[in-house]
């Protein structure tokens, strides 16, 4: 799997490259800003781009803007955005443009090597990886929408879905039976008025509804 990294700190750029290479990924390019990221994506056609939010020249949200451009121009490239802070407004921007093959993680998570590589694989495979903090922030904001109708347990399940976990993953996390999880998931779809089409699609819709994007 080919990956392009955009990160302005040399230290982290090299560290990430080493970690991903060790993890069996191919790092096609590692660049320090958004502009070079777009060129690298055009040149290498990677499967995944790992993008830091705050990069030169303005040191604000270049990463998010570059990610949105990539999603528009190269919809096949999966996006994993790393940020020093979880900001709801960045996450909302990203998630309203991308519903699959997208991740938004706190930069700290790279230090949990196995979890991070797992998230990389999941996003590259078309899944989502949202930082628990992102999810928590997006959840707390909405008090007066359909999510309210969910029981606390169902909300918990939805939160895990938003973090990108499969049913199996949820079973592990909650320590309950697979049939129980399936029941929660069905209830969630029902309460959020999601028609029974492909399950994966409904999962994404449920998460998006939950995120209010």
């Amino acid at each position, binding site marked *: 799997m080919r990956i392009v990294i955009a990160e302005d700190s040399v230290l982290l750029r090299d560290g990430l490259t080493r970690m991903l290479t060790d993890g069996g990924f191919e790092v096609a390019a590692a660049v320090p800003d958004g502009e070079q990221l777009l060129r690298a994506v055009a040149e290498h056609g990677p499967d995944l781009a790992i993008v830091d939010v705050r990069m030169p020249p303005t040191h604000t949200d270049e990463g998010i803007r570059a990610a949105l451009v990539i999603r528009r121009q190269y919809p096949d490239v999966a996006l994993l955005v790393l940020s*020093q*802070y979880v*900001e709801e407004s960045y996450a909302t921007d990203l998630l309203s443009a991308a519903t699959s093959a997208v991740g938004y993680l706190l930069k*700290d998570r*790279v230090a949990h090597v196995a979890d991070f590589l797992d998230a990389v694989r999941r996003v590259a495979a078309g899944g989502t990886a949202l930082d628990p903090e992102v999810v928590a922030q997006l959840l*707390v904001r909405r008090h007066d929408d359909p999510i309210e109708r969910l029981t606390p347990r169902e909300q918990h399940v939805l939160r895990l879905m938003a973090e990108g976990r499969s049913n199996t993953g949820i079973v592990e996390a909650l320590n309950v039976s697979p049939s129980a999880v399936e029941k929660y998931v069905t209830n969630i779809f029902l309460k959020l008025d999601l028609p029974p089409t492909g399950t994966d699609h409904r999962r994404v819709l449920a998460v998006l509804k939950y995120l209010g994007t």
Partner: protein
Amino acid sequence: MVTCWDDLYLDVMISADMTTRRAPAVIRALWSAPTRRATGNTLAALLAAVAATLLLGLVGVVWWAAGWSLLHWPVGGWSHAALYIATVLAGPVALLWVVQALTALQRSRLHATLGLDLPAGTRAAALKPWPVGPWRAASTWHQLGFHVLTVFTGLIGGGLAIGLWLAPVALIYYLAGGHPVPGAACASAVATAALVLAAPWCARLVTRVDEVTAVALLGPSRSEALELRVETLSRSRADIVKATDAERRRIERDLHDGTQQRLVSLAMNLGMARARLTGAPPDARQAIADAHDEAMLALSELRDFIRGLHPAVLNDRGLAAALSGLAARAPLPVHLQVEVAQPASASIDAVAYFIVSEALTNVAKHAQATYAEVAVVRDSDLLRVTITDDGRGGAVPAGSDGSGLRGLAQRAAAVDGTLTISSPMGGPTVIAVELPCES
């Protein structure tokens, strides 16, 4: 050339000084520095007074003539009457110009001859509506008073002082022109000497009067001086607030670009070591695991600290985005309402952000609330921030446990804002903040 003149001047000064040491005070006064200064000023004041007399006299006579003619019905019929009316109406305007011009002249004269700097106070000339505004200001009348006064002090006092200096000229005329009787000639020589000796004191007296009246009438009044001071103070305080803000932003940026990245890198390396060194001895593995956990903890603490210093999102995306992050991170449900069509300045945004941040921390710590509401509304040139909670109330602004609330009030006061707290026992607590923003 300039140096040459300076040297010459210096020589004269030195020789004058050497003479000074030997001469009695009355004689010494004739060429001492205060006398030179006073005489120069008196001469300049005399010239300025001549200008004042001419200008004020011209305006006064024309105005009076027009008014008088109007009262006694003009001979020339309507066209003349219209001219007189126009003149009468234009009088105050012309007088205002004369007063302003004379004030400027006198200020530069006082600066040149006495080194006296008189700050202009409120700019009476800029007061609206023109020309009523300037005439309503007390300073305009003070200035007029000074110019009328100079007609007397400047002309009479100045004339007298200069006249005393010129007494020897009159003596020479007298001695050369007539047929002086020896006794009379002797007496007039003595009288001339007395007059010349009196000249320095007369010039000094005139200058003293000039100085005192100028300070009283052309300088700022007490209230104007206070106004000036308040203006200076509030400007410098705004600068301090801005500078503090910029400094926090700089530190935030430095920490973000430096320490934080380095710490992430360290944690990542430790994480990789932890994952890879499965074959190492157990105590070594434990040490790495501990170091990794510590690094993660430090990272998380540093992140909270940096965010408390200055949230980057406030710069990037404004108050609404920053507050929504704040509301989301609060340990209790927060309903947020932001209606800010026109963004305030960066300093005001930062104050509003930190007030909400501290208020929510307080609510979480002390209020035992289940719910909080934050409303931020821009109301023309005010930013209104209201934080409400359904807790137990009883919050004291300056009490022992209210240091957080006092901090909020100080933050608001630093930008001329106000903060009111209503917190009856049993709640609800409402903190209302008003921050002025220039539109």
